[in-house]
């Protein structure tokens, strides 16, 4: 209690320091005056009386120290003093401070943004669901690979057979067509088990959630829970939304509730809008046996460990259960094993490639941050050299080693914190920008990343770490300073110049790697804009349809496509129309399928593969890909012709050694096809890809329930076709929406978007890094030069020309730089050949970037060297 009060008073005193000091002064004066009066009464002379009084009082300065120590918190007061000094020092070097803070901020900002993604996936994989990261994935696995999901009956069995997991939840992603006849919209939702919302422990925004009994008997409870966003956009957030009907796949569902604001389903980053009891599946999907058929897999299962249970137990129980199911239902469950995964290790969806990509990106960015730290350390060291004298004075006046270290630390930490603060602000902007980035595609994707306390803590931690790293060298250096040495001269030998040079070399090397990577990215991005795709995207409209909700058979699929094409071709502005399963330059790429072709024997192990696309007749006309030999596919309604295939030039060159392809047979998993034509090569996956072999199959032979409509306009105004195409589809099937309508040019732009993000990042980071490297070199050289003023002066005095001096300084420093550059160059070359282009080396980049870096480095050496060589020899020699 007593010490608490004392502490509190001390804290108050720290604040009211001045008043207290004044009080002590007054008290001392009064004391001495009284003693003097007393001495006078005792008969001393006035002068003697006062000096006796002062003698008796004792040392005033020592007392003041004691008093101060007693009064306040020495530590905090020192810290405040340090901070004040630090603020003053920093404000005296605004340029340098700005460089340091901004470079730190950019590094921390980028790192924090990436971290917020990783954090989202690892720790908060389901927004609005607390403890979502603790969910485990319950995944049946096929012997030959692949995770097909569970069937509904299997789910019901597993629910009771894995006691180590309680409340297993099942969900399946389904595209729905929502709306009245003639104006339907494609919306993604999940078919869910009855315990879905209760197991996730969610509270509805309004209304209620699906009850367990509503997912018991098939088809009885036509209810739907909608997402918050859907509620806002479709019902304008009106509370009356609950109880209203929603027309989904031509059935009426009653809206019973709205999910919490952030909730977007159980498959991040996919964003779902509707949740329907799984028992509505047969009615909505038009598949009567959907819930009874054990081979109809597709449900994703997740569950949390029961209290006290371990993952190993869950795995063991799951394996036992699957083995039993395989015995009971061999035709549906044989050869299917069991795997339990942590939630972030999902074997499907975009998350899988994301997490490793993000980890690499984070690693690279942390390296960059390290380079920034090294640079800052160099700058601070160089600055520290000019402050040796100041520090020496401080030490001589009695400052302890720790006071010096804490002074240096507080300066650097202040810089680090300013950098971290600005970095966090950048991260807020970055995550917002990324969240709003249009991730359009076949599926609705939303990354609900945001900067929360955890992310902020990461930014601050990074700031503190950086601060510690770059304050260590100058702090150690200055604390070791011998005050006598420091006061006597500033031209002593530098013990740390080697470390500084190594640091400089490493930094230049890092700069080399990142700059080359940046240049390659930008180069590929630029060339992507200029490359001829070898088909003509201008004037083509793309749109997708999906019959999967109808569960059609092959004949009706074929018939639908044929009728659709007939109607589309009759439109006056349509020059040509076709349907294909794949669109070139798609984000997801086009699958390369294995095959064997007549007349080729593969000698090496493995299988021949070729890009494969299934198209209707007329496709080559729409795409403006000329057929070099042979003919287009037979008509959709032609029943007589054999199954057909068209290959491209590269296929002929690579697999048939340029021999005649027409008339040969090609065998795939889907059957045997007769090659009837050879098409010109074109671009399939990406601009700048090496030429790939490709096979086209006919829709007539391999029917599909979904397709991408390709329309070539006569007038050149393809956007105008969208409304007409919609009308045609509506006529054919009023419940079927036309979705993902875009021009081919838009399609390409959109898919370049993902490449544009790193391209932009590198476009910003590249020059920044170049600037950083230049500043770092400049700092080191100008530091070294200042320390050698006397030597340079001597040389000049003895007749060296300033030209020679400059050359020598540049030569000395370029040594370390050249090493760093060489290592960086080789590294970049390896990375480029192995990972990025996989093709021929981009010579302009690999020569241009080193040339640029070298000239910048030389310039950064030249400026301080030149300044040094211009000094007056006499002044230099007099210079302490």
């Amino acid at each position: 209690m007593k010490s608490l009060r004392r502490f509190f008073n001390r804290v108050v005193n720290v604040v009211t320091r001045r008043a207290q000091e004044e009080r002590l002064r007054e008290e001392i004066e009064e004391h001495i005056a009284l003693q003097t009066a007393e001495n006078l009464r005792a008969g001393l002379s006035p002068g003697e009386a006062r000096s006796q009084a002062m003698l008796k009082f004792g040392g005033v300065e020592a007392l003041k120290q004691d008093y101060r120590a007693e009064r306040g918190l020495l530590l905090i007061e020192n810290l405040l003093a340090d901070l004040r000094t630090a603020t003053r020092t920093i404000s005296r070097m605004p340029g340098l401070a700005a460089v340091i803070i901004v470079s730190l901020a950019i590094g921390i900002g980028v790192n924090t943004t990436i971290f917020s993604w990783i954090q989202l996936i690892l720790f908060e994989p389901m927004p609005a669901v607390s403890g979502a990261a603790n969910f485990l994935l319950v995944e049946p696995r096929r012997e030959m690979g692949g995770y097909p999901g569970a069937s509904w009956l299997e789910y019901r069995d597993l629910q009771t057979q894995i006691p180590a997991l309680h409340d297993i939840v099942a969900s399946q992603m389904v595209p729905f067509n929502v709306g009245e006849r003639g104006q339907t919209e494609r919306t993604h939702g999940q078919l869910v088990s009855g315990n879905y919302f209760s197991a996730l422990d969610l509270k509805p925004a309004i209304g209620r959630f699906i009850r367990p009994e509503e997912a018991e008997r098939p088809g009885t409870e036509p209810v739907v829970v909608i997402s918050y966003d859907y509620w806002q956009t479709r019902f304008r957030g009106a509370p009356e939304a609950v109880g209203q009907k929603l027309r989904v796949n031509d059935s009426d569902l009653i809206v019973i509730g709205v999910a919490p604001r952030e909730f977007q389903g159980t498959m991040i980053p996919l964003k779902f809008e509707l949740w329907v009891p799984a028992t509505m599946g047969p009615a909505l999907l038009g598949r009567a046996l959907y819930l009874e058929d054990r081979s109809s897999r597709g449900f994703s299962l997740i569950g949390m460990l029961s209290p006290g249970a371990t993952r190993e137990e869950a795995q063991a129980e799951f394996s036992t259960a699957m083995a039993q199911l395989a015995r009971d239902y061999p035709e549906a469950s044989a050869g299917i094993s069991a795997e339990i995964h942590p939630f972030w290790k999902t074997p499907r969806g975009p998350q899988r490639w994301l997490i490793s990509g993000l980890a690499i990106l984070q690693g690279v960015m942390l390296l960059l941050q390290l380079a920034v730290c090294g640079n800052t350390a160099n700058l601070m060291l160089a600055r520290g050299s000019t402050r040796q004298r100041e520090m020496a004075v401080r030490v001589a006046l009695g400052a302890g080693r720790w006071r010096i270290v804490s002074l240096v630390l507080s300066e650097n930490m202040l810089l680090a914190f300013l950098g971290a603060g600005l970095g966090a602000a950048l991260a807020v902007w970055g995550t917002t920008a990324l969240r709003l980035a249009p991730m359009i595609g076949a599926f609705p994707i939303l990354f609900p990343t945001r900067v929360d306390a955890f992310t902020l803590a990461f930014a601050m931690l990074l700031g503190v770490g950086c601060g510690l790293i770059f304050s260590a060298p100058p702090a150690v250096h200055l604390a070791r300073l011998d005050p006598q040495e420091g006061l006597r001269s500033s031209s002593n030998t530098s013990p740390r110049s080697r470390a500084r040079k190594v640091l400089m070399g490493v930094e230049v090397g890092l700069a080399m790697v990142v700059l080359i990577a940046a240049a390659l990215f930008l180069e590929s991005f630029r060339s992507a804009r200029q490359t001829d795709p070898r088909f003509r995207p201008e004037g083509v409209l793309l749109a997708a349809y999906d019959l999967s909700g109808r569960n059609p058979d092959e004949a009706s699929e074929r018939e639908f496509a044929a009728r659709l094409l007939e109607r589309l071709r009759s439109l006056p502005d349509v020059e040509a129309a076709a349907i294909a399963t794949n669109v070139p330059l798609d984000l997801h790429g086009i699958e390369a399928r294995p095959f064997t072709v007549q007349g080729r024997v593969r000698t090496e192990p493995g299988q021949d593969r070729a890009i494969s696309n299934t198209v209707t007749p007329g496709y080559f006309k729409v795409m403006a890909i000329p057929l070099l030999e042979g003919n287009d596919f037979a008509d959709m309604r032609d029943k007589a012709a054999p199954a057909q295939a068209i290959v491209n030039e590269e296929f002929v060159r690579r697999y048939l050694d340029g021999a005649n392809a027409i008339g040969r047979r090609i065998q795939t998993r889907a059957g045997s096809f007769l090659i009837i034509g050879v098409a010109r090569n074109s671009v399939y996956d990406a601009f700048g890809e090496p030429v790939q072999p490709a096979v086209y199959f006919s829709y007539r032979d391999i029917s599909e329930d979904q397709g991408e409509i390709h329309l070539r306009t006569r007038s050149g105004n393809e956007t105008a076709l969208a409304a007409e195409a919609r009308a045609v589809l509506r006529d054919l099937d009023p419940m079927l929406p036309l979705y993902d309508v875009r021009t081919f040019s838009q399609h390409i732009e959109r898919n370049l978007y993902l490449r544009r993000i790193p391209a932009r990042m590198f476009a910003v980071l590249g020059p920044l890094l170049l600037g950083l490297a230049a500043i770092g070199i400049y700092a080191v050289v100008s530091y070294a030069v200042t320390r050698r003023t006397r030597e340079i002066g001597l040389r000049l005095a003895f007749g060296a020309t300033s030209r020679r001096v400059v050359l020598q300084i540049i030569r000395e420093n370029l040594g370390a730089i050249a090493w760093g550059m060489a290592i960086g160059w080789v590294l970049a070359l390896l990375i480029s050949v192995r990972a990025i282009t996989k093709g021929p080396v981009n010579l302009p980049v690999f020569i241009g970037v080193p040339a640029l870096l070298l000239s910048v480095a030389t310039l950064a050496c030249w400026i301080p060297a030149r300044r040094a060589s211009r000094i007056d020899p006499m002044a230099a020699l007099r210079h302490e």
Partner: protein
Amino acid sequence: MKQKTDVLQGTLALMVLKTLDVLGPLHGYGIARRIEQISGDLLAVNQGTLYPVLLKLEQEGAIASEWGASENNRRARFYRLTRQGRKQLRTETQDWEQTAAIIGRFFDAKAEDLS
């Protein structure tokens, strides 16, 4: 060295409390004089050391201070004992007497008493 000042400070604090208890509110010089009179040469030099002690006691709440006029009509800081200070004085006097008695007995003890 440090030990000695600590002991000095401790005893000085007790002396300040006792002085204020007996004489009522006093300024720093008055306290110093009084202690000097009674303790002889303890405060003959370095009277200034009194002030950190006064501050410590004030921060602990044992004494309070306010500005007043001294004998020669100058502004002076007067210290007085608070209720808590009186309590502290009582317990510390007790402690002191107890310690003194124990130490006293210890010094009086002869070899045969300890065997």
